[in-house]
Structures are given as structure tokens and as C-alpha cells.
């Protein structure tokens, strides 16, 4: 297998290198790729969409259709992870910690349930006491991360950023909670169901905005036809449409990041993981 793999890899490499023979030099401003469409986007996008960040303009408007499916891909990945790993089976053994004393109880008889509350705490086998310093630092950090994430989403029109980036940052803030505290705390704060709904709703916002253009008399995704529904300058309506879909993307990405994380680290049982 190794030898065969080596040969295949060498053949592929040779093929690819053969193809580079006809490339323009790297960074050549006059290469075909830099002339045809590229120039049109650079010269027309700002005027047509009022969005200075050309990447966002192309991503969410000219090629918004791609991006819609990209969001669907994300949603699909989240759903797939959930489907593959989520394990609803009853646990055979339970662990409890007596909070005042720190004694850990191991209950093998699954029928017996201890009163969880002030006295006992539900834990699992891999439980580690969380570190006070880490907890505190993270508690301070998380809101800032989240605000930054929202900025990245909202300001995607003008500066590097957008729904995906912002969504990932927001998702990572939630993942940080799970790491620094406990997976269960995250899941208790925000129910798993909520993440699922948000993932679907995020995509639905995108598809919904896009589909709304059709009854308004435009083609699919044609934000300019949304002008009657939106306040403000009709010239900016495309930018607003883009903002809307970016928010949808952000929500979906956030939710999916968390879904993938919590399912993979805990092998689908949503207990402590890692």
C-alpha cells in the first residue's frame, strides 16, 4: 500500500507540475485570472452594492447562492455529528459528589437516584475539579469575545469579517465556557435543543431572505427588490440584505460549532469530555 501510494502521489504531483508549466508567474497582474472577472468585481462592486469589502460583496451577493449552500453544508455537518454520535441511552452507572465533603459516590444500581441539589452534585467518571483561576479569567473573557464576534459579523461589509468568521468566534466563546467550566454547565445554560433550532433557523434566515425576493418580483436572492420592506436609502438595500444573510450565517455557524464540539468531545453523551 505504501509503495502504491507513493507511486500514485508521484504521478499526481508530476501531473500537477506539468500543468504549472503554462501558469503565469506568481503575482503577475496581467494573468488571465486577474483580468477578466476580477477587474469587473473590483470596478463595479462598490457602485452596485455599496459594500466596500469586495470579498463580502462577492460572497453574499454576486455568489450568494454558493454561500447559501455553504451554510447548508455547515448545517448538514452539525446534523450529521448529532445523528452519528448523540447517545440517549440511560447511563448504567452514576457518579455523585457530596459537595460539602467532596466525597465521590459511585452508584451502580441505576434505579436509585440521589437528590441532586445543594448536597449532591451529578458528576461523571472523568470529572476533574475546575481551576479557579481559569474559571475567573474565562468568565471575564467570554463577553468580550462575544462582543467582538458580533462586531465581526456586523462590520463584515467594511472590514475583514462576516458571518462565518463571526460565527466561529462566537462559537468559540461558548466552547471556552465548556472547557473552562464544565460541559454540563454549558448544556444547562443553553439547551441542546436551542442549538439545534438555531442551526436550522440560521440557514432558514438566509434561505428565507433569498426566497422573499421572489414574491417581491425579483429573481431568487435579488436583494434589490426588497427595497419596499426596508427602511433607509434604497441604494443600500443590497448591503442590508447582505447583513441579514450574514447574521443568519453567523447564527448557524455558532450553533453548529457548538453542536460538533459537544458531541465529539463527550462521545455524544453530553457529559464531561476531553
Amino acid at each position, binding site marked *: 500500500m505504501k509503495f502504491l501510494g507513493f507511486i500514485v502521489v508521484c504521478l499526481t504531483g508530476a501531473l500537477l507540475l506539468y500543468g504549472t*508549466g503554462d501558469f503565469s508567474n506568481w503575482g503577475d497582474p496581467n494573468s*488571465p485570472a486577474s483580468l477578466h472577472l476580477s477587474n469587473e468585481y473590483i470596478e463595479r462592486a462598490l457602485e452596485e452594492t455599496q459594500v466596500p469589502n469586495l470579498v463580502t460583496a462577492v460572497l453574499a451577493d454576486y*455568489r450568494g*447562492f454558493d454561500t447559501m*449552500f455553504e451554510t447548508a453544508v455547515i448545517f448538514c455537518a452539525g446534523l*450529521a455529528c448529532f445523528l452519528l454520535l448523540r447517545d440517549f441511552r440511560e447511563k448504567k452507572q452514576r457518579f455523585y459528589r457530596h459537595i460539602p465533603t467532596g466525597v465521590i459516590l459511585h452508584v451502580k444500581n441505576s434505579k436509585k437516584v440521589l437528590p441532586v441539589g445543594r448536597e449532591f452534585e451529578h458528576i461523571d467518571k472523568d470529572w476533574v475539579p475546575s481551576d479557579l483561576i481559569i474559571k475567573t479569567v474565562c468568565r471575564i473573557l467570554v463577553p468580550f469575545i462575544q462582543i467582538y464576534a458580533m462586531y465581526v459579523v456586523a462590520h463584515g461589509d467594511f472590514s475583514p469579517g462576516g458571518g462565518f468568521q463571526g460565527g466561529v468566534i462566537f462559537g468559540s466563546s461558548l466552547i471556552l465556557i465548556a472547557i473552562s467550566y464544565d460541559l454540563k454547565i454549558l448544556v444547562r445554560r443553553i439547551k441542546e435543543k436551542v442549538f439545534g433550532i438555531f442551526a436550522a433557523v440560521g440557514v432558514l434566515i438566509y434561505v428565507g431572505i433569498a*426566497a422573499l*425576493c421572489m414574491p417581491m418580483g425579483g429573481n431568487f*436572492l435579488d436583494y434589490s427588490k426588497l427595497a419596499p420592506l426596508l427602511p433607509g436609502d434604497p441604494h443600500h438595500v443590497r448591503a442590508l440584505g447582505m447583513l441579514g444573510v450574514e447574521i443568519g450565517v453567523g447564527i448557524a455557524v455558532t450553533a453548529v460549532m457548538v453542536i460538533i464540539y459537544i458531541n465529539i468531545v463527550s462521545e455524544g453523551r453530553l457529559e464531561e469530555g476531553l
Partner: protein
Amino acid sequence: MDNYPALIVVTPLLAALLAGLAAWIEDRLSYPIALMGLALSTFFAFKVLMQVIGSGTIHYRMAGWAPPMGIEYTIDLLNALVLLLVSGIAFLNLIASYPSVNQETNDRAASFYTIYLLFVTGLLGVTATGDLFNLYVLIEITSLTSYAMVALGDRDRGPIASLNYVFIGVIGASFYLLGVGYLYLKTGSLNMADVAHILSGIQGSSTVLVGFILCMLGIWIKMALFPMHVWLPNAYTYSPVAFSRVVAPLMTKVMVYVMIRLMVTVFGLDYIFNTLHLADAAVWLATIAILAGGVMALAQKNLKKMLTYIIVCEIGYMVGGAWMGNQLGMTGAILHIVNDALMTFALFLAVGNMVYKLKTIDLPDLKGLFGKMPWTMAGFVLAALSIIGVPPTCGFFSKWYLLLGALEAGAYHFAAALIISSLICAILFFKVFEICFFESLAGGHETAHGVVEIEEAPVSMLIVSGLVSLSIIVVGLYSGTIVNSIILPFLK
């Protein structure tokens, strides 16, 4: 309404999301939503096909941007036909799938429908799009959903089959993406028509050649042409039966469509057959694929796995036909997309019914099935005859065009492979029939005169199965009409 082209694809996507959301409220809601979505999609696809036949190619601009800058759906006769095929089969399968889904994935049925619809969305999008990169994104949607579906099937082998599928699928998709990159580098465009226009001026470029090879390799991996087929049999065998019934007929066929689309629309037949000299190699590859698929099918002990190898064999038919370099071969390949989708679908419907009743379908489990499930078996026999290529089933007529194309091109090895594979398929299927027919009496002679208890699958499954089996004959008899009103105008 001129938004039909977009609606074909968007309706299942919307339905997928709504079905997923509805599951949080009430599990039973997601099935009707899914059904509705696909019914509408099929309806739109039918409308579009009529429109295209009536008034020619439809160009639909996403977001209203003119083609090279925006993404465009270009629906001509070929993809209108495939769109109807895909949405129709997906819809029919959903009708038939309700009992099997409940049986196999009962607590996850809603998620199943969501992923199912996303998968169909992907296939429809792949078919409808006129943009090279959009095609990649949609291929990835279909792949990602299939990974999930395969893993949902057999508890033990499913995840392994699926992970292998992931590795090979990623290589395939990445090759395609690289190919598109090479083309983009030379043309600066992603719209198929635009790329084709620019390519016609730079045919000698080695970058274009490599781009072409990469695209073809990627698509071949995705469609499981012989040496690159290794992922397919396990993946399709271990996936839930409701899913394998839709992936087996559609996935590979849509990839064949993509190949033909790239060949005809993007690179141009003139470039492929007159500038490059790869056609002979490709036809040989197809020949080997046909023979290898058939031989490997002979060695299988499980009915579902056997059928998956037949898919590998059938891929060879279509690739060979498309690369024959003449109109007859291409006609045969396109006709075979339709026919093979139908007959594979019919076969897997029957298999689905068997699995529903028998749970395991290793060949010895099938004893006495003609007595127990006569209607299922009738559908199975009809589909099998079509695979063998017995007239008046549709399989014969596409084989007819493929053989004519092979003779015209002088590709006698390919013609011989077609004939031999027909014989191999005959052996294969009659081996199955023998088990189903004869071994019912192994128990003794009492059953010979007694009434065999009939244990048929649910009616919804049977009706769909019967409908598709009939369509095999009807499509076969009207293949002249399909060729004359859809395929030939497309090729001109």
C-alpha cells in the same frame, strides 16, 4: 412565474429546514413536509422540462446578476430531463420509504428526512447549475449527506464504510476543485458558457489539459469508475435501505451527467476528441470497468452488495458511450442515464421490500421468495431483465445505441464487453431467481400443493415498485420519442 428553475432546488432545501424544525415540535410533522417539498419540486421540474422543450434553454440569473459575474442556472434539454428524473425518483422513494424509515431509524426519522432532502437538494443543484464552482459546493452537499447516511445504516460496518467514503470522496472533490482552479487560472471565469468560450482560444495550453484531466478524475472518483470504485459497494450496502434506494440510482447517474456536461458544454467535444487523444484510453477504462464490475458481482453473497457491483458495471456503459466520440454513443450514454436510474431504482425498491420483511438478504435468505412476495419479485424480475437488456425493457434500447456507437467508432472491445456483461448479468440474476424459485420446496412436498403464505411488503412500497417497473417498459417503448425530442436536439 419564471422562478421555476430556482424553485426546483430551493423547495427541497426549505422543506429540509422546516422538516428539521418541525421535529422539535412534533416528530410526525416532518414526513408530510418532506413529501410536500419533493412533490412541489417534481412538479416544478416537470414544468421546466415542458418549458424547455417548448421554448428552448432557460437562463436563470441568481440575484439578477449577469452570468460571468453572478451564478446562472442554465437549463437545457439535458438537465431538464435529469432534473425531472432526480426529483421524481426522490419523491417516489420518499413515498415508499415511510415504513422502512420507521423500521430502521425510528427515533431519528425526522433527521433522516432532513438529510434526505438536503441530499436531493444537492443532486438537483448539481444538475441545474451552470457554474463550475457552484457545482463543487453542491457536490459537497450531496457527499456530506451521504457520509452521514451511510454511517446511519449498519451499526458495525456503516461508520467504517462511511469513513472510507469520506477519504475517497474528499480526494475526488478536491481533484475537481483543483481542476476548476487550473481552468480559472487560465480563463479567469467560472461560468460554464464563459469558460467554454475562452477555452476555445487556448486549447493547446498544458494547464487546460491538466485541468481537464483533474476534473475528469475527480468526477470519475465520485461516480466510481472501476479502479476508483472501492468506496461504493460498502457504502451503498451498509447504508439504510431507504437511502440506498435513492443514492444508488441517482448519485452515480448525476455524476455521469456532470461528466457529459463538462465534456459537451465546457470543454467541447471538438477539443476532447480532436485535440486530445485520451478517448481510446477512456473507452478501454470503461471496458475494463464493465467486465470487472460484472466479475466482482458474481463473487458476492449478499444481494445488495451484488447490485452495487452492477452499478460499477453500468458506470462503464455510460462512460464508454460518452467517450465513444460519436453521436450514437453519446445518445446511448444519455439514454442510459435515464434508463439505468429507473432500473436500478426498481431493483433497489424490490430489495427494500425484501429487507423490510427479511432483515438480511444474503442469497440463501431469499429461498421461496417468489411464493412469499410475488409482487415484489415481479418488479425485481422486470428490473433485472432490463439490466440484462431484454427488450422491450428500457435497458435494451440504451444498449442498442451504445452498441451502435461502438460499432461506428470501431470500438469492438467495448461492444464485446457490453455483450459479455449482458451475459454475466443474466447469470447473476438467474442465480438469484433460481434460489427464489426452486428452494421453496426444500422443506418437503406438503408445501408443493399447499398455499404458500404471502407476506408482502406494505402497499405503499408495492405501488411505487409496480409503478417504477411499469415505467421501465413504457420508457423503453418510448425511447424513440425521448431520443428524438430531447437527446438529439440537445446534441445538435
